[in-house]
Structure formats: structure tokens, C-alpha cells
């Protein structure tokens, strides 16, 4: 009798753990539910060479890649709709692997079925216990964008100065600000600020709405901070309108490191 009770209690406990781990081995993107077990098979086929069998970004191709492949065990992700320091939503990870990451070794995985991408997200989440212990924060609400105007660009230019964007991105937007050479990512590898004159191929998406989100959330694991408490919505649109002028101007001043207070 005692043995039966013992085994029943054990089963109940075991089941509690099953439910817990099962929940963490799924992803939910819209109506899709991704399954980690199916995701693992895809991971081993497509992702393991860079991200490694342990998900720590130390796959056999990793030494030849810059920036380094994401280390999933840290659960720190650049492209999120959630606050700085928070886990991403499943849909954020889904968007990243669908879009790919410009200026990195990460291609777009749109050739895979949506269900397959959802399964991969389910598996990627198993590499860090953070996905079992914490919940993602409240996602950013992106308000409608006001019309671009000379006034908005002017205000944006002032904010680009006062918010010290120029310290890294440079006064000419080329990414050669006075602090640029000192920047590292959270693994200690050198990292370059975005050159706004190069176009619109930002790592986390190209639209003004993507930029708005990036300004609110920051790109975790990089020196790019969140401006959530630092600017209001209107100011963020102003800065975006100003940043867009770097790519559209036809001639650029000669490349050099910005001096102080010019």
C-alpha cells in the first residue's frame, strides 16, 4: 500500500514537471504552436553549424563569423518588442529568423514553413531556463506615425545631439562617434555602431515602426540602450525622421572622428 502511495505521489510530481517543461518546449505565434522536439530535428540540420549543439553560439563555423552567432543559453536578444532586460515574445524570435539579420551571418529562414520556424523557436527556448522562470514584459505599443516635416527633422536633430546619439553614431551618422571605437557587445567582442548613411538595412527591421520599437526597447547585448523613459512618442518619431536624412543626402562630409561639442 505504502509503495502504491509513493509511486502515485511520484507520478503526480513527475506530471507536474512534465507540464512545466512541456509548456517551455512550445512556442506560440498567432495560431501556430511550435514543438521543440520537431524543432530539434530542424535545428540539427540548419542551425547547429553556427549556434552549436549546446545552443551557446559555439558551432564549428562560429570562429569564422563576425558578429558571433547568438548564444541562446544567455537568453539575451537584440530584436524584441519587450522592454530592455526582458525576454522576447515568441513572435519576436519568429520575426528574427524569418527576416534574418543584416550585416551578420544570419540569413532569412523564410524558405522554411511557418510551422517549421515555430518549431525551431520552441527548441531554441529550451537552451535557457529563463524561459521557464520568467515571462516576457509588456510589448511596445507603436502609435501611428505623424507626417514628416522640416520641423520634425529639426527637433530630431536637436535630440540626436542632446540624447548623445552622436557619441557613437557620429554627428554625420556614419558610426564614427568619439565613443565608437570603445564599444563591445556583452561577450566582449568589438561592435560597430550603425552607419545611417549606408541605407535602411537595420538589424531588427527596416521600417520607421521597427526603428520606433528599437528606440523603446534598445538592442540588448549591445551598447544600444533603450530610450523608453528618455523620450516621448513624438520625440522618437522626430529622431527617426532626422536619422532618415543621413541616407538620403547625396554628398557626405569627409570621414573623420567627431570632435567635442562641434
Amino acid at each position: 500500500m505504502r509503495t502504491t502511495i509513493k509511486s502515485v505521489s511520484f507520478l503526480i510530481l513527475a506530471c507536474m514537471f512534465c507540464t512545466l517543461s512541456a509548456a517551455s518546449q512550445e512556442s506560440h505565434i498567432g495560431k501556430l504552436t511550435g514543438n521543440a522536439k520537431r524543432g530539434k530535428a530542424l535545428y540539427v540540420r540548419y542551425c547547429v553549424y553556427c549556434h552549436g549543439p549546446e545552443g551557446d553560439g559555439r558551432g564549428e563555423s562560429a570562429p569564422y563569423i563576425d558578429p558571433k552567432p547568438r548564444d541562446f543559453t544567455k537568453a539575451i536578444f537584440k530584436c524584441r518588442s519587450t522592454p530592455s532586460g526582458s525576454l522576447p515574445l515568441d513572435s519576436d524570435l519568429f520575426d528574427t529568423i524569418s527576416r534574418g539579420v543584416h550585416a551578420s551571418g544570419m540569413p532569412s529562414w523564410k524558405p522554411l514553413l511557418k510551422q517549421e520556424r515555430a518549431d525551431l523557436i520552441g527548441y531554441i527556448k529550451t537552451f535557457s531556463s529563463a524561459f521557464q522562470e520568467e515571462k516576457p514584459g509588456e510589448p511596445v505599443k507603436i502609435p501611428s506615425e505623424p507626417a514628416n516635416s522640416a520641423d520634425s527633422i529639426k527637433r530630431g536633430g536637436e535630440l540626436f545631439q542632446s540624447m548623445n546619439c552622436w557619441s557613437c553614431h557620429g554627428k554625420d551618422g556614419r558610426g564614427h562617434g568619439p565613443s565608437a571605437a570603445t564599444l563591445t557587445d556583452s561577450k566582449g567582442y568589438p561592435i560597430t555602431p550603425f552607419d545611417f548613411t549606408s541605407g535602411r538595412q537595420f538589424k531588427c527591421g527596416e521600417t520607421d515602426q521597427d526603428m520606433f520599437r528599437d528606440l523603446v526597447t534598445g538592442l540588448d547585448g549591445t551598447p544600444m540602450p533603450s530610450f523608453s523613459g528618455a523620450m516621448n512618442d513624438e520625440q522618437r518619431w522626430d529622431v527617426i525622421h532626422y536619422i532618415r536624412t543621413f541616407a538620403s543626402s547625396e554628398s557626405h562630409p569627409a570621414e573623420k572622428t567627431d570632435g567635442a561639442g562641434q
Partner: protein
Amino acid sequence: MKKVYFSFVMAAALVSLSAWRFVPVASGSPADAGSSLTGEVKFSGTAPKPTRIDMSQDPLCAKAHSGPAYTEDVVVGSDNGLENVVVYVSDGLTNHNFQPPQQPATFEQKGCQYKPHVLALQAGQKLDIVNSDETTHNIHPTPNNNREWNMTQPHGTPMEQTFAREEVAVPVKCNVHPWMKGYIAVLKHPYFAVTDKTGHFEIKDLPPGTYTITAWQEKLGTQVQKITVAGGEAKTLDFTFKQ
């Protein structure tokens, strides 16, 4: 049947015991039974010269200083006292449930340096981050055992944060001003102190027991000593760091 009943009682006891573990309990034992631990942390040898910081890239930082500003990674005061050393109980506490104090800790950016340069606080304790400078900073902790975040803070904007897990110590930097470096030590209990300009520290209300006391300095590493304190005792403990 008796056995079944016994098993149920045991199970219930186990459940309630495990539930109790997660109820936060007020910190420490009554102050009257607590002991104090005081001491001095010294630097042995010739004190390293602090390096002058060039703040010219941001005139708002430079003008906040009347004279030159210096690095604070090893600060040796009068009588070779070593400042900014975190001294804390690293082992030996029998009580493991401590509520964070109501009083928030404060970490200030002033003259484009962190004040204090090394802050210690309790896990879960509110941390007020203050930007007293005219310039805009970003405050970027790079922890191993806590979540990493990175927030811009213009002058006068309030910011409140917490660290959930113990970590001695979390490096903090400002990417905009590369010379800005500080540390936040997060402890899961209230038995810690940071040495002042003279290298002095005091840990109050330590319950009787045998403890491992660790002294941590950002560049010079850690030192460990064992002590036993009786109830109501005033114990002293000194550390000496070398380059």
C-alpha cells in the same frame, strides 16, 4: 491503513514545509542578540597612481569638474585604507529568507562618474538611479547572474530598478562615456558593507554563528576569512590587499 494515514501526514508536512521555505521572513535575529563586525581593509605597498580621465569629448562632463578627474579602480586613502571594498558574509547563515529593506539604495551619475563607485544592496531592494549631470547617460549593467538591461537616462529623469539574484559584483558602464565604470554588489542578506575612505567597514546585527567573510575588490580580487561570533559580541576583522 495506518501506514496510508502516515504517508498522507508526511506528505502534508512536506508540502507545508516546502511552502514555508518560500515565505519571506523578517531579517536576522533580534538586534540585542546580534553582534557587530568591524574592521579595516588596508593596501600594502606603494599605492598605484590613479589615471587622469580625459572627458573632453563631452564638454558637459568636463565642466562638472574644477580640477582633473581620476579613475577609481584602486582608491587608497590616509593610512593605506582601501576604499570601495565589499565585505560580506559569503557562507554560514542558517536563515536564508531575508526581505529587502524598504529604504531604496541610490546610485548617482555625477561629474560623469558613479557615486558611489561601488554600491552594495540587497536582492530585490529598490535602486534609485539618479542622473545629476546635464548630459545624457546610458546605464548598462553587464551581469552574469541577473538580466542584462541598458537604459538611457537624460538629466533629471527618475529611474528605478532592482536586481533579483545575488552577484558580487555586477559591472556597470555607460557606453556614451567609455571611462565610466562602477560596480553594484547584490547580496541575498543584509550582512554586508562597503569600506569608506579610511578602509573602515561595519556589519551590524550579525546573529551568533561561524561565518565565512569575503572581501571583494574590483581589481585586487577576493580574500576570505572565517570567524565565529557569540551573541552580543563586538568582533574585529582586518584584511590586507596587495597589488
